[in-house]
């Protein structure tokens, strides 16, 4: 599945101060993870994404500060502008539709007996 949240804009464009943006922050590098994590997880960076209003204009990829909805200032790499919320309802599941229909029929058959 393609990464759904990146901004399609060219990285050179200045993002104006006050834009609603997403920043990323590498919290712990691979190799510095907690001692108890499984090997597949330990091989990856532990990364945070936080959203807020951009404090000063900057291009994508720059190290920036945002003001969050709590008014706190948090820093990280500017990753996206107006990031889309990607959660949706997905595709229909015909198997479940058929099973629901069959359950209705089972109930009707019983009540008509």
């Amino acid at each position, binding site marked *: 599945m393609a990464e759904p949240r990146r901004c399609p804009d060219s990285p050179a464009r200045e993002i104006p101060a006050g834009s609603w943006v997403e920043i990323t922050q590498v*919290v712990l590098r691979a190799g510095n993870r907690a001692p108890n994590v499984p090997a597949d997880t330990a091989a990856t960076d532990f990364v945070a994404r936080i959203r807020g209003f951009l404090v000063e204009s900057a291009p994508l990829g720059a190290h920036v500060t945002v003001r969050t909805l*709590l008014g706190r200032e948090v820093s990280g790499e500017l990753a996206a502008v107006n990031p889309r919320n990607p959660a*949706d309802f*997905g*595709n229909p*599941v015909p198997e*479940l539709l058929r*099973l629901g229909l069959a*359950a209705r029929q*089972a109930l009707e058959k019983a009540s008509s007996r």
Partner: protein
Amino acid sequence: MTRDDSYAAVMSRRAEIMRRSVGIDYDRYEDEGGIAFDYDGLAGSPAMAFDEVRRIQRRNKVGDTPLLEVPRLTALARQTAAPGRGARILIKDEAANAAGSFKARRASICLAQAADGGFEGVIAATSGNYGAAIASQAAMYGLKALILQEVFDSEGRGQPEVLEKTRACEAYGAEVWQLTVGPELFYIHLRLLEETGYFNASLYTPYATLGIETLGHEIATQCVERFGRPPAAVVVTHSGGGNVTGTARGLHRAGADGTTIVGASVDLTGLHMASDRDFNRKSFTTGHTGFGFPFSVDPDRVDVPRNAARGLRYLDRYVTVTQGEVFYATQLLADLEGLERGPAGNTSLAAALVVAREFGEDELVVVQETEYTGAGKHPTAQLTLAREMGIEVAVGRRDEERPGRKIVFPESIEAMGVGEVDLSRLRRSYLRRVAAKVGERQLEQHELAFLEADLKAAPDVLREEWDAVRADARRDAAAAGAARG
């Protein structure tokens, strides 16, 4: 002087950070020996009468949720029961709470405590409905809410249900930290508690479980008022233990001592909860065995020194259902009863459709919660992700389901079942941890009494299980010694 924020340094300050951020002196309740503690003292520590809890919840758009009859589901379930069997099934519609789940009950009381303590804001580390509940309750108090969620695998693929929760939390004005997979969520949690001085809205304080007691209490009183009797059984989705604990305590508080407490978890056996690879191969982010088992056998593995939520203390029976069965139950609830809910909250519904067969037609079986549904949460969203992850989705037998590889819908209600969890096995697993702690010394009388209560085991049962665990530990030690020698 700058603070050392390295992983090791922050973790070493854990006890101090926690003490400041939850406002409870846990040492007061510790008994000699490190095994037992004064559970009733801790559980009863909130300086808040039960009426006060209800008053806070009413003010904050929580509780007094409808207890719904689902006659068509009951009729369908009775088709699979012996003549005269098949309890009347009722559903407590917890989706009616502010923020759409029973978690508002916990959050409302945690936020009351934070407001009383003069905190500026609260932090909760949760990928589930609790985050939205905290953010929603914080909005009512005008407090700040900072929510930490485990959302992405290392390829940036988000679990849709958690992405929906990010959206909800931000809609309620929270700051959300979306994190990749890993238990270091706890490290960030501590760091941000230290940085902000906010209150730790832990799921596991006595305030959080007290907030759920109203749920058990409402179930008992609503059943008695409408049907003249308490429920024969209440089926509770079991994960960290708070839902079971609060509900059971509330039922007891209302005098429903004869009600059987049935815990239900989605069977995710074989998937590792801290694995980057497995993260998006599960369709449920909570209410599953990946939490239900470890929290039962090691309840104090949480963000506070002692967990007020203790599943084994209250469970009479513990069953598992498959992911496919919960999706099927969710479809039935929509198709036969016109209610779109869940799916995660329908874990207890899937179990109840089976458990109800065992009770008489005049008895009541209560499904203890629903939760809101929506984009990301809905079965179609979860099953779309599953198929993208290469998981097979099919209709078939329940024993064909393989968590992380195959999801199987039952072809009819007759094909649904439950797996019985051996509570004795869980108790012995709990006791192995005790044995590792105490070494060769004998348990004191007060420790035995604590364990009997904490494991809901009769004295002779506890004694027998403890002796067996002890004997195994000695044999293992001898074998290890021989291997070394």
